[in-house]
């Protein structure tokens, strides 16, 4: 029997980095000896259209090759998706599903908007954090910081060191530093119920 697998579903809009986050997290946990999968849901590629990403993390090799219908964690990069039936944010959630929402609203309000009774809801203003830390409201990296605070899939130290190593190939030191600060702030500023 396969070991327990953590399943994470990302909801964003094209351009917010849902795909990048899903794959970044999958690759970042490898440094901790985990097995992982990260994949987007491909459809028409349009900036602003609802997109989903998926991450699976396990201590054992992962063999499932299907979409994530019953996620352990649901991460929403864009709060305007909460009311979209097509985006399907609460789809397949159980009483144990944990929601992480990029929003200025409180967890209690989000709970009402999603129409859920069980699970757990956390919120963080990741767009503002991103804007303040690296000058662009791209919320994906701070949302991984928020995830590190509530999920046992990656430590903040491992997340920061993975980010530094992986971003070095593409970005300036200023961008890397800004992202590190953003991740650390989201880790701390997460609002829980």
């Amino acid at each position: 029997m396969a070991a327990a697998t953590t399943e994470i579903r990302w909801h964003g809009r094209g351009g917010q980095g849902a795909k990048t986050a899903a794959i970044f997290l999958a690759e970042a946990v490898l440094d901790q000896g985990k097995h992982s999968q990260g994949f987007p849901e491909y459809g028409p590629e349009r900036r602003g259209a609802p997109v989903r990403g998926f991450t699976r993390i396990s201590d054992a090799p992962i063999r499932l090759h299907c979409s994530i219908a019953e996620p352990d964690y649901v991460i929403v990069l864009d709060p305007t998706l909460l009311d979209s039936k097509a985006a399907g944010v609460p789809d397949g959630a159980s009483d144990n599903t944990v929601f992480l929402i990029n929003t200025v609203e409180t967890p209690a309000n989000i709970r009402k908007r999603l129409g859920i009774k069980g699970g757990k809801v956390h919120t963080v203003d990741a767009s503002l954090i991103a804007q303040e830390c690296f000058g662009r409201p791209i919320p994906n990296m701070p949302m991984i910081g928020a995830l590190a605070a509530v999920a046992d899939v990656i430590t903040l130290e491992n997340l920061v060191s993975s980010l530094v190593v992986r971003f070095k190939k593409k970005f300036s030191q200023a961008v890397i530093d800004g992202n590190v600060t953003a991740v650390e702030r989201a880790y701390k500023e997460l609002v829980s119920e």
Partner: protein
Amino acid sequence: MKQIYVGLTGNEAVATAFKQARPHVAPAFPITPQTEMMHKFADFVADGVVDTEMILVESEHSAMSAAIGAAATGARTFTATSSAGFALMWEVVYIAASLRLPICMPVVNRALSGNINIHNDHSDAMGGRDAGWIQLWCENTQEAYDHALMCWRIAEHKDVRLPVMINYDGFIISHTSESLHILPDEDAWKFVGPKDLKTGYSLLDVDHPITVGPLDLTDYYFEHKLSQIEALKRAPKYIAEVYKEFGELTGRHYSFYEEYRTDDADMIIVALGSTAGTAKDVIDAQREKGVKVGLLKIHMFRPFPAAELAKALSKAKVVGVMDKSASFGGWGGPLFNEIRSALYDLPARPKIHNWIYGLGGRDTDTKQIVSLIEQLQAIAKGREAETVNLLGVRL
């Protein structure tokens, strides 16, 4: 040997393996979901990591034609394709095999049009199953990487000399980052080795001039087809040898097909590609409940290991074959037909039923496979059922 633990998409993993095999020539034309593989390989070329001559052509028909020309000179050559691109190169796909050229080609499996669909099924490769190529199928990113190293040793073996298609599921594997072990460049190169340019014939060998691809009518065409038939008959022996050597080197042991929990299985599911992985998780859960079900996953579809498969499946009461392509107007899917035919000479045949599934990338989740197993259980108990069924479609 120390291997490197990384996260790569199927496309990145295959591009990495091909870089390690140091091909001489790679004609390229883009088509989703293969494109990213050639992008990655082109990066390696642009960065000077590998000195492959890339030829950017104007269509897949030209890509395969260029590959044939390059391979006929003796160059280690690959191209890659998917779906409609594969369909467009049809004519020349047959020629590559007829000329016994050891070209390697990932077919990143995608549905055929129409309507236009970029997602995974196996219609593209199944249409090419009779083209004379060796066809190998992969479940995940690791298997795609491994086969992209092994294919060269198989294709270029002096007693094989056939082109090899490596199949992996579009998006599900090609665009999914998965954890896998790759070989260090030097170890990979040691395994693949340089192409033996003295084997066979070369267009560039002016001391031994030859003609490639002339008119071949009633006098010799049939004998040349015989040479292809015989080469494919010989191939399994060498594929097994390469699998064995690779297993000793890496600890990853392959065979023509993988049997998963089939030893005492009353019911065996047969599948190709990524769905086999999902099926394994479902089978583990069913086994916990005492359901005796197993899986047979095929790696080598061409040449088809009929006798071995018949033996492996003979123990089962019911066999359920999953086909990710429809044979319109036919009696079940292509994999089903081969398996059913292979079982015909058994003294006591299992019942065998077919499920067409996942067309155009329809997600094949655990629930669908559970439902398939429930149907197999009912058939095992004697319930009448359709021979050919559909799985996961809205009726």
